[in-house]
């Protein structure tokens, strides 16, 4: 599982350089068949961190003030993939009439959350970087991912396969791409300048979609 052991001080440095941010940087993802890849998490990790000194202490990323939402509706998690920064809170409201029992066995965050319809549970804080696979103990086909990142520059690819990263200052970066169907996180180095650059096209090889197919028949099995 991808881990992003990124010293927080680099981020502080980078944030400090925010006035010199580059123009929006776009990545376009396609699979082996040329089809756009949606739900990929694209992030940038700076490779040249500024020197740390007592006068220039590392600082922490600031998660959003409001909790992010991964809801359960129609016996599915929505959204499918949610990238967040370390320390963010996520709440799991149940919009269905049925119960759900959301769980994670991922090392980054293990939990089990019985969710009754209409009942609000306290949001869960994701304080470790890593990918957290969410499942439901009651409905086997329900799957979602929360990708906990240690960088502020990330984006989720759209159905068109594009992800736009804004505000990153010029410099050398490691571009990281995570997707549920990638065998492992795709990484590559790149250098950003202040000049506007053309979208970066990246072709990736995806593994088969192993998600359990939900039966369309009510009386049928949950998976086949």
């Amino acid at each position, binding site marked *: 599982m991808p881990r992003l052991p990124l010293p927080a001080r680099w981020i502080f440095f980078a944030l400090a350089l925010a006035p010199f941010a580059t123009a929006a940087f776009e990545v376009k993802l396609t699979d082996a068949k040329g089809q756009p890849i949606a739900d990929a998490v694209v992030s940038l990790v700076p490779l040249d961190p500024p020197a740390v000194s007592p006068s220039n202490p590392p600082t922490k990323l600031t998660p959003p003030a409001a909790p992010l939402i991964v809801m359960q509706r129609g016996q599915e998690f929505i959204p499918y993939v949610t990238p967040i920064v370390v320390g963010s809170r996520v709440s799991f409201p149940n919009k269905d009439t049925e119960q759900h029992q959301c769980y994670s066995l991922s090392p980054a965050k293990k939990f089990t959350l019985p969710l009754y319809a209409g009942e609000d549970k306290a949001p869960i804080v994701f304080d470790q970087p890593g990918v957290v*696979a969410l*499942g439901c103990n009651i409905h086997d086909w329900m799957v979602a991912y929360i990708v906990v990142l240690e960088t502020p520059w990330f984006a989720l690819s759209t159905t068109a396969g594009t992800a736009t990263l804004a505000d990153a200052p010029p410099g050398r970066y490691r571009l990281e791409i995570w997707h549920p169907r990638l065998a492992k996180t795709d990484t590559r180095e790149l250098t950003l300048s202040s000049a506007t650059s053309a979208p970066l096209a990246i072709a990736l090889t995806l593994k*088969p979609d*192993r998600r359990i197919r939900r039966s369309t028949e009510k009386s049928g099995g949950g998976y086949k």
Partner: protein
Amino acid sequence: MRFRSFRAQLLALILTLTGGAQLVAFLLIARVHRADAHREIDRQLTEASRRFLKNVEQRNTDLAGRTEALSFDTGLRETLAATTTDRDTLTSVMANVRGRVGASLAALLSLEGKLLAETRDGPSAENIYRPLQLQADASESPNPRATSYGFIDGTLYSLTIVPLRAPDIVAWIAIGFPLDRAFLDELHDSTGVESLLRHGPTVLATTATPPGELISRPQILPTTGSAPATLELRYSLDEKLAPAQRLENVLLVVGAGSLLLAALIGAGFARRLTRPVQQLAAHTAVIARGDYATTITLDRTDELGRLAESFNRMSAGLAERDRVRDLLDKNVSPEVAAQLMRDGATLGGEEREVTILFADLRGFTTLSEQLPPRELLTLLNRYLDRMSAAIEEQGGVIDKFIGDAIMALFGAPVAQSDAPSRALAAALAMERALVAFNAELATEGRAPLGIGIGINTARIVAGNIGSHRRLNYSVIGDGVNVAARIESLTRTPEYRTSIIATAATMAASQVGPVSDRPSEKAVRTFRPLGTVPVKGRAEPVEIFAVDG
């Protein structure tokens, strides 16, 4: 084979046809039976092969389904997914999985294919599970699974690997069941096919070995981690042929019976056919013997019956011919009869030289006055009989009896070169015969008889004379009259002779060949009697007495 009798040939033909037809039919049936048995066994083996694979697949699917269902068990999933769980716990969980799904072995593999736990002891079977895991991982299916055969602890297992989801695939669970005797027995119960499972030379499991000739079909079972195993599906040809064999046995018995029946019927038929033929053949021998009176009776209306009727008609015809011939012989001389039989009785004649002999009984008129007619006839017949014998002995032909007179011919109808000599010899023999006859008459107290014989040789016409309805073979001409005339001259006392011949006869008898009877005199004694006029004839005839 050569049979001499028609009956044997007929019988052989019937048996050959019947037996041959049955043999051909039997061989065809036997061949069809064998072909059927092979085809049926082939079908069964194909079915058994299909069934075996289906059974394995079914069992694999069952186990996989149960294992997958069980993998969603919360507690089990949490325990197995946690990287911190110790090996003993994982092993006990796998044992629980094995028990719950009804597998014989269960193993847990990491995503990298590392064996985390398995329910069996002994050397690690990771090299067997690993290819399965790779195969399942490469699967495009949303439900990745893989199956194979694996050779573990001396037993062939059917193995299946399924993912453990949490909810991503975090590990793989392999389960398996053994292909043992029980599994093969089950196959036998449902298909009737025996089987044997081997791995190289080692027999892993087998059902009963069927008796007799086996038709075997190998089914290769590829394994992971070792050489493939072989399932031999087997069926006994003898067993499959048993019902056909029973039918064939019945056919053999029926065939032998019908052959026997055909032989009996054929023999009877041949007998019915050949016996009348033999009867007819025997009858021809009867006919050949001259027995025309015996008729043959075949109580049948077919060709043979008609043939028998023809035989009888032929017999009747032959009998009729003989009767005619017999009558002919009695009424005419045998030579004339033979000529008639040969040439037929037609009017007309041919001119030839013939010696004519006329004989007349002296004193017959007196005798006829003294004796009653019946006795007279008897006496006359006795006389004529002896005279005839004397004539015929010399090859003469009795032309006719005229009362007590005899007219005989020599040289007709069959030409004789020594006819005059024969006539003379006959005349002398008649004289001698009369002497003997007179001796007989003397003992009977009767008066002796006398004879007069006249002989002439002349060219005359001989042939059938008469009407179309009645005709006689005879001669006609002046020479005949001469002979009759000179016969009457024997009454002349001065001549002192009872035999008078003309000069023509004498001359011919002297130039002709010597008699073929050496005992008799070849040269006669002729005594000239001068010439006599003959009534109705211009020239007188020179005559001679024949004295010996």
